């Protein structure tokens, strides 16, 4: 048996190190270390609660709208208020554009370049992967960066600036779009659809969203998605990095009539989410304290970094069990037939879940732009109470994001954030149960002499980790 430390990882957001115990050419045990800690929760104490809207987006420059939306919903909850319907719709539009952009970036810039590596030379598809996805230079890479920049005109129009958009507030959004902006956004979305249909999927999006079985998925042979499925079939990515089959989704895009994608937990079947069952375990994190519900949670780093802890990341659990979160989880909980067919998880399932969501998001965004009522109110004033508690639950691209705030004497007394990758890349808990990534890595095959095993890279990146959100 030997030990291998893989890291630092690039093409993931932030810093990550994975320690592997290896026996008989396979990973026997894995430990994920999030080596970056900044202390957001500590610096928010004593601040004006409204400043959470500005501070929390800085946790992450990739999913800043997710953070700002979670903060806005947490403050609204503390005030017993709700966003006005059109405000919620614009917030959903801003958030969906960010999430779609994230999925695009993950596929083109972070995940696919691994198949252009020399290690795969000689495979039928290798030359095409090199041409399309070589890091920084592939033709697909450049085209996707361009498509995303164009899509983000919508975020510019509605949010003023991206990253770190300020427009989302507890009562709605600061921006009232005009009729002409609506027309422009429609044109932007038409352009994005064209990109998706010509480049990513090579066919109408509705056809992809209508897929129902893994067999049909693997037969999809057009666009860059088709190239991925060809590679996935050749390398057996369906079996690689399988998960627990337990999925958690807070439900994406809260609108006046409910969430656009369902909220719930899946463990064989869907059950309603009960946030009281969420805890954060710190037994293997360099943190002082006990297992606690996020409302009572503290963030006190253990500066001695004592064993057996090995990460700055806490271990969130639902009903004591580890749950996977992300696009696949969202689609499984939402009940999409293809996602249910992929419920065993794995590299193929996670990436396919993201592509499926990308296809569905386009239709949703088009609908939200079409139904914008520019004469309606987009924000109502919300007075933040001097004493109160609130929770904001949203779905970032990478999965379930929750903010828990406690306000005392008009300032923040406690603020706890549980991010998607905190769930997915959590260390072990007090019972020794590994986090979802750690479990998924067990059994990953290694070739002779591999220092940064390709299988490990694929599995890690299939989660699209965001390490800066993880610990914050």
């Amino acid at each position, binding site marked *: 048996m030997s030990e291998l430390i893989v890291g*630092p990882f690039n093409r993931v957001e932030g810093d990550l190190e994975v320690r592997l115990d290896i026996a008989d050419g396979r990973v026997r045990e894995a430990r994920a270390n999030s080596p970056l800690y900044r202390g957001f929760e500590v610096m928010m104490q004593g601040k004006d609660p409204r400043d959470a809207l500005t501070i929390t987006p800085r946790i992450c420059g990739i999913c800043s709208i997710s953070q700002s939306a979670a903060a806005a919903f947490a403050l609204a909850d503390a005030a017993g208020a709700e966003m006005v319907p059109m405000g919620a719709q614009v917030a959903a539009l801003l958030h969906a554009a960010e999430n779609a952009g994230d999925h695009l970036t993950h596929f083109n810039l972070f995940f696919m370049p691994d198949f252009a590596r020399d290690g795969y030379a000689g495979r039928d598809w290798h030359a095409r992967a090199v041409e399309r996805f070589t890091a920084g230079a592939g033709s697909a890479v450049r085209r996707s960066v361009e498509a995303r920049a164009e899509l983000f005109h919508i975020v510019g129009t509605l949010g003023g600036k991206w990253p770190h958009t300020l427009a989302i507030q507890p009562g709605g959004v600061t921006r009232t779009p005009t009729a002409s902006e609506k027309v422009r956004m429609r044109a932007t979305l038409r352009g994005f659809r064209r990109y998706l249909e010509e480049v990513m999927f090579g066919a109408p999006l509705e056809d992809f969203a209508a897929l129902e079985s893994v067999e049909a998925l693997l037969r999809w042979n057009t666009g860059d998605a088709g190239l991925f499925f060809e590679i996935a079939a050749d390398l057996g990515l369906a079996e690689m990095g399988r998960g627990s089959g337990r999925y958690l989704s807070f439900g994406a895009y809260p609108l006046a009539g409910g969430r656009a994608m369902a909220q719930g937990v899946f463990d064989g079947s869907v059950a309603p989410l009960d946030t009281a069952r969420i805890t954060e375990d710190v037994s293997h994190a360099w943190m002082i304290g006990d297992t606690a519900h996020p409302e009572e949670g503290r963030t006190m780093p253990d500066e001695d970094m004592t064993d057996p802890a090995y990460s700055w990341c806490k271990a969130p659990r639902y009903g004591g069990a580890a749950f996977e979160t992300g696009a696949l989880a969202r689609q499984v909980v939402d009940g999409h037939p293809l996602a249910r067919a992929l419920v065993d998880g794995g590299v193929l399932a996670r990436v396919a879940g993201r592509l499926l969501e990308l296809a569905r998001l386009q239709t949703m965004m088009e609908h939200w732009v079409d139904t914008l009522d520019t004469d309606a109110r987009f924000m109502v004033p919300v007075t933040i109470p001097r004493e109160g508690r609130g929770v904001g639950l949203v779905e970032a691209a990478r999965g379930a994001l929750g903010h828990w705030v406690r306000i005392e004497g008009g300032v923040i007394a406690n603020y706890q954030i549980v991010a998607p990758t905190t769930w997915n890349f959590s260390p072990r808990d007090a019972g020794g149960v590994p986090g979802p990534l750690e479990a998924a890595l067990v059994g990953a095959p290694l070739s002779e002499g591999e220092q940064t095993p390709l299988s490990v890279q694929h599995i890690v990146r299939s989660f699209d980790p965001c390490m800066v959100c993880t610990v914050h």
Partner: protein
Amino acid sequence: MADIETFYDVMRRQGITRRSFMKYCSLTAAALGLGPSFVPKIAHAMETKPRTPVIWVHGLECTCCSESFIRSAHPLAKDVVLSMISLDYDDTLMAAAGHAAEAALEDTIQKYKGNYILAVEGNPPLNEDGMFCITGGKPFVEKLKYAAKDAKAIISWGACASYGCVQAAKPNPTQATPVHKVITDKPIIKVPGCPPIAEVMTGVITYMLTFDRLPELDRQGRPAMFYGQRIHDKCYRRPHFDAGQFVEAWDDENARKGYCLYKMGCKGPTTYNACSTVRWNEGTSFPIQSGHGCIGCSEDGFWDQGTFYDRVTDLTQFGVEANADKVGFAAAGVVGAGVAAHAAISALKAAQNKAQSRNEEV
């Protein structure tokens, strides 16, 4: 340095046409505020100068600077700038991983010793011997110092590298420290903002690569061409400020009329940046245009100036002509920065000369 390609070689290799190249040169000249006579100079420089290697490292940060950068509307930036600087080493975007990535960093440093630009995103935390940010098993501060040692100049991207930004907000749990407090013997150019505007980033880097020197800096070490004016000075809502017409509450009648956001806490009057002229997301908009006040993210210590929704009370500057330098004279702690900026340019030159003579020796 014969083994290093010119910018133009690199661009040609990326399939960029001559026509696009010339367009890029003229738009670059315009973006940098230079006249048409500079276009052939830029073109000539790019055809003959060896490409300047860039090493891009990440400390405590959120990658918003990279995110902003790759969304630039700078002419053909997706192709030209990315291929031009080539990011010989970049934690986030590069192909190699793990040990291979560390080796790539080492290779780049050795190959271009004294001749590369180090772009720093984020900052090092110094508490607990730097253990709050570890890459490759070592504190980031060590990687930063190591990479800085042989750099000819350093760009501090964003508020994190320039001032410490959010992780340095009170009580600064990790003792996050801006780059210039750790590296004191290299020319450093600060490009603050959270994040900086993409066009400002590409503009700065293009200027440095093309002219081989730092752009003119203000007293705080920021490029004057982008940070010379307050957002307030060029804000399209400025007439409403002058007329005393203000938004009093979110989404009120005045908000719909586009009145001034000063009473909603806008920090435009005390913030030096190009948001109101260059704008964001390919020139689409900027925060004030979205109906939210400016939070002053390109100013030092903006996190700890009280809540973002309280109005600025120490507003004394009303002249459009006031610039960061004039205000800077009144502020403590920046005296001598102008001299330092000048010295920085000389140091950059000296560093180059040294690099060249070393290369000749080899």
